[in-house]
């Protein structure tokens, strides 16, 4: 097991090294500075990165790492919330479709999710925003929390910070933060949700064909018991590797969502850095996102192997 994890992390390190090479190349292009000893330049660049020195933002004059620390949790909060939302909705819907494969219900679920899958996110975001801003004003469409609430960041996650805050308005602030989260979450969750539905449907219908389901039914187990004990337990581990891939897609889509909903996360920050031609910020932001995505993928692989018996043999494989 330990060896397996080391192997996976080797992959992580190699990919990150490749990334730093690209980053180094770009930064030397931007600075227009070429020295005689590229290797030692590269090494000092990598050491600076490793010690958390991502440079100074030319737009604000603050260290890039500090700025990323301030905006990244907002992105994480949005992505996690969208991710959880897509699973909570996607798993049951996919299960229903998979259990009744071929029925009208199945066809209509798949039809709707194909439609949702094909809608461009920024367009959906604008539609949602226009509807909620112009026609009904019962949900906020921009920002993360009403700015009048002053909550000092501890974890950077507003939902947690408002709960642990001792401000007299902490509870109101929590509800306010939750309200702000709803629309961006729905928009961001749309595409991964359709993916969860599709995967869940395939694996559930696969499991339903198995003999042990028939055996369980003939033992007299109720339908709910069959689903909980056999169907879900056999189908869910299969979709976890797909979820890992979805997570990187979610982060990419989050950029667009943040821009439309003025969500103060790393996506909006990066876009404004591009406008201001703040090269240090663009490079630092890209590097942090890329490392995070790779890390998430490696992590899901490890988790899959741990909980999925079929793939556990990879631990012992000597490739």
């Amino acid at each position, binding site marked *: 097991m330990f060896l397996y994890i080391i192997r996976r992390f080797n992959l992580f390190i190699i990919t990150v090294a490749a990334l730093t090479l690209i980053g180094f190349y770009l930064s030397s292009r931007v600075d227009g500075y070429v020295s005689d000893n590229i290797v030692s330049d590269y090494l000092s660049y990598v050491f600076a990165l490793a010690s958390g020195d991502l440079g100074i933002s030319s*737009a*604000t004059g*603050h260290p890039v790492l500090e700025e990323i620390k*301030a905006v990244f949790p907002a992105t994480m909060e949005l992505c996690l919330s969208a991710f959880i939302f897509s699973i909570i909705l996607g798993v*049951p819907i996919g*299960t*229903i479709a998979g*259990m009744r494969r071929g029925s009208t219900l199945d066809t209509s679920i798949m039809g709707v999710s194909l439609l949702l899958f094909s809608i461009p996110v920024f367009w959906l975001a604008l539609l949602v*925003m226009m509807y*909620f*801003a*112009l026609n009904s*004003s*019962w*949900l*906020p*469409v*921009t*920002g993360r929390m*009403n*700015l*009048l*609430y*002053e909550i000092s960041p501890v974890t950077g996650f507003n939902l947690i910070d408002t709960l642990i805050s001792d401000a007299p*308005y902490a509870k*109101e602030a929590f*509800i306010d933060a*939750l*309200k702000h989260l*709803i629309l961006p979450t729905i928009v961001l969750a749309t595409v991964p949700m359709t993916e969860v539905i599709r995967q869940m449907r395939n694996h559930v219908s696969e499991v339903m064909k198995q003999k042990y389901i028939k055996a369980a039914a003939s033992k007299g187990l109720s*339908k*709910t018991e069959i*689903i909980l004990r056999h169907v879900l337990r056999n189908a869910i581990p299969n979709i976890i590797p797909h979820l890992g891939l979805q997570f990187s897609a979610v982060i990419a889509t989050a950029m667009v969502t943040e821009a439309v909903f*003025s969500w*103060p996360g790393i996506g909006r920050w990066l876009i*404004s850095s591009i406008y201001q031609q703040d090269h240090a910020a663009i490079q630092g932001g890209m590097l942090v996102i890329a490392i995070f995505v790779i890390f998430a993928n490696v992590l899901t692989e490890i988790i899959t192997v741990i909980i999925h018996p079929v793939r556990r043999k990879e631990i012992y494989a000597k490739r």
Partner: protein
Amino acid sequence: MTISNKIRFSFLFLTIQFIAGCDNQNAIKQNGLVYCIEDSPSSFNPQTTASTATLDATASELYDSLLFVDPNTQQFKPGLATEWQISTDLLTYRFKLRRDVKFHTTAYFTPTRTFNADDVLFSFGSVINSNHPFYNVSKSGYPFFEGIDFASQVVQLNKINEYEIEFKLASPDSSFIANLASEFSVILSAEYASELDKIASKNHINQFPIGTGPFKFKQYRTDNFIRYQKNSDYWGESTSMEQLVFDITPNASSRLAKLLTQECDVMAYPAASQIDIISQHEKVKISIETGLNVAYWGFNTEIAPFNNPKVRRAMAHAINQETLLRSVYYNTAIGAKSILPPVSWAYNPYLKNYKYNLAYARQLLTEAGYPNGFNIDILTLNSSRVYNPDALKMAELLQSELSQIGIEVKIAKFEWQVMQEKLKQGDFDSYLLGWVADNNDPDNFLRFQLSCNAIESGSNFSRWCSTEFDELINQAITKTEYSDRVILYYRAQELVQQELPLIPLAHSLRIHAYTDGLDGVETTAFGGINFTNITRP
């Protein structure tokens, strides 16, 4: 299975409805105000800036000036100075200062004394004296003070006693009071400055501001928001808002969305095209003020054929102001006859308008010797300005009008820095530009745009130089009586109207949109919002 899912769904929707239905009327919102502005401030010291966004976000909130301008009457009223005297030779201005005015107490500074003459000496000294220890702290210089040549105008600045100061001028200048009452001439704390000097962080004076204004600085997140807190020690009328937050939202559509969902209470600069949508919305109100600004079409009066006033007049007759107001401003501006806007006290209401008449325009061109027209370049800005939301569109409208009298227009659009360079070099035929007043004195409009000296200093791009005009405006600033000055300015405007180095096009209205839950939304004399009287009934 389906049943358990139904339960789950209905639970989810209940939660959403519960959250959505929650009552908004809680204390923090009742006592706070969010203002959506268009740009981040470049500094928290109005002395160091020329940007409207910075002024709007800092000047009247954090600071006080020696004098204020009453937005309704345009008269001066006491600020940090309670009374003032002007000597008979018009060279000495003496101010009595207000007592017991406290500077802000914040997390980073606790004042030990109240406001006195030293603070005035510091505030103006750091601007006019290039040897002053704080002179070089501002990286952007002091654009307003440099523009009016404040340093050579003020020969001496004397402290008479703790609560009395005296300015000695080089020559009589009746716009001096207006300059002191402008939003740039704020009073900073000398004590705070010396504290900062001791800990070697002088530049904090522009980043962590200390003033005497109705609000004090709390927090700033670049490109995100500014948080101010009520100054409970304020000497003037105290505000009912405990908190004032500026939400920085560059995109006009996002600002509108925030206003409609009540994320902001007040929205700056709604786009002209949004006014219709906003006025249809029942929960939103609009305040419209005539702005102290002008948009004009200027000519390079040094080169033919634009050196001929007849040609310029012909072009003025070919402009349909109605169309410009409708298509460019969506009727959020008024047509201009003079460079001065009607709200200025020196505005000459007797000026005649150049009527839209293409046949007459063609006749004038023929008389001037150009029966077949000519080619002309128009330089335009590629971004919107207070006085002109869409210069490119305006240029295109002019293009189509002028083509009918045989004038072929080529439009060139630029960033401001590039355009400014071209204008300074004289490398152009004509340009679409404008002016936003720094103070309420007519001198500020006329001298900067049209005096002979301003050709050299680079703000009179038309290069029009008239000794008669210069004499009129120079004479005007030596008079103290409004009535004397008005006559001279009337004459100066007539002269500009005849000669037409600049064709005035429009005065943009200053529009704010705000939610209907607010009372007492007033603008300052310079068009910003006055937050002190706003209440939520």
